[in-house]
């Protein structure tokens, strides 16, 4: 009997596919998310929109918050550690968390190195803006990938940019003759073996969710139609005026993402979406997606 194998790490992400992972900051939020049909929750002290507002250094959440949320629900619970902060990751593993998000939403702890994720039994999800970044993270042991988008904005434009970038680069690799793959790996700054694998299979070796800016059922379905395996919703639910109803609607839109009639129906009477801020209005030094490499 073997635990912590690559297959069970990647496998849990496969079980999350077609689902919505919701940011929650209290056990009550977690219960609302579970009741709405979330396939997992992300336990946090503050949602990204509030992290943005608060400024300062954003760190791993207090274990008390995380444990209370783990007790409140029966679905998988994820939590975030800072980029490169492998001790925060060790702590999260010791708490028995189901997935660790090494996240640009928190203030990076290491500007050169991400966590060496192969050392852990618990699986990791990491953000990416393009295929090269995704493959570097997978090379370090990430068993799941998500687009970074721009967290806490409610603006979907960056998530779309990042998802399209990943998909375009995959299509390009598939068409490329084998003898050009090494130069392409150099260009992407990605491990050659993974580049060669995608050339053959036409897909990432791990699940890829969309994140960073999803605020409406239509946003979720947009990301699914663009090729996401599922969606993370951070501030989009609990910063809206009616979280329970919006959460349920986003879950339905993610399942029925090809059925515009159902998306239209579930989009009715949801109340106000999160206030949101256009990514264009944010000074470049305050953008989160640029954290990590």
């Amino acid at each position, binding site marked *: 009997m073997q635990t912590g194998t690559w297959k069970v790490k990647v496998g849990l992400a496969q079980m999350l*596919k077609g*689902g919505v992972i919701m940011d929650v900051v209290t056990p009550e939020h977690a219960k609302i998310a579970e009741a709405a049909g979330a*396939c997992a929750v992300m336990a946090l002290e503050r949602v990204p929109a509030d992290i943005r507002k608060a400024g300062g250094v954003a760190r791993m959440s207090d274990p008390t918050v995380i444990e209370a949320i783990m007790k409140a629900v029966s679905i998988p619970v994820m939590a975030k550690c800072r980029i490169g902060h492998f001790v925060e990751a060790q702590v999260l593993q010791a708490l028995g968390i189901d997935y660790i998000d090494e996240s640009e939403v928190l203030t990076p702890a290491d500007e050169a190195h991400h966590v060496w994720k192969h050392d852990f039994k618990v699986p990791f999800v990491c953000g990416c803006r393009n295929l090269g970044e995704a493959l570097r993270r997978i090379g370090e042991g990430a068993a799941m990938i998500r687009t970074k988008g721009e967290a806490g904005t409610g603006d979907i434009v960056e998530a779309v940019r990042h998802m399209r970038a990943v998909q375009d680069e995959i299509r390009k690799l598939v068409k490329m003759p084998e003898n050009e793959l090494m130069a392409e790996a150099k260009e992407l700054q990605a491990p050659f073996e993974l580049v060669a694998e995608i050339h053959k299979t036409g897909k990432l070796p791990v699940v890829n969710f969309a994140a960073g800016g999803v605020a409406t059922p239509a946003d979720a379905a947009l990301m699914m139609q663009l090729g996401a395996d599922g969606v993370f919703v951070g501030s989009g639910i609990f910063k809206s005026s009616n979280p329970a109803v919006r959460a349920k609607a986003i879950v339905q839109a993610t399942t029925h993402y090809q059925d515009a009639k159902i998306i239209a129906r579930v989009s009715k009477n949801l109340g106000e979406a999160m206030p949101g801020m256009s990514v264009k209005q944010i000074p470049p030094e305050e953008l989160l997606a640029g954290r990590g490499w």
Partner: protein
Amino acid sequence: MKIGVLALQGAFAEHIELLKKLKVDAVPVRLPRQLEGLDGLIIPGGESTTITKLMANYNLAHKINELAREGFPIFGTCAGMIVIASGVANGKITPIGVMAIKVKRNAFGRQVDSFETELSIPVLGKKPFPGVFIRAPLIESVGRGVEVLAKLADGTIVAARQGKLLVCAFHPELTDDLRFHRYFLDIISGKR
């Protein structure tokens, strides 16, 4: 032969791919009308709370329950096993309750306790079957007419069959071993 795979949430694409390897027509099912003309249904792994909640919409749970009672073949893996069980020991889940088994969710612990092990499954032959258990459930007890197909070394029941209903706590769809799915196809065609 045409098999539907319940595609509300979870690892449905993996089942569809595996069925294609067995040269079977496989289609995703999200609405009741998509159940028409099928020879069987697979309910995949995923989150059982999410799947049961989504099944409650559009009369889908009711329709599947009705079909199962008429002898329609269903194969449930992991969450899919929980969905068709008659009882769930823990958690806030209402299964459709067509198979006489009582199950326990997340029975082995959290994700760090997820594991791989080799299983002996006599109906599939001598060669061990690769068992992939992810936050897996187990079968606590079986009712009349249920045949136990596989147990862990400690006696825990992890696969069973009742007529044309087939369940396992692990994930054959995450492996290259086609035997469990072939067994389901044999149940449908009446060979087994």
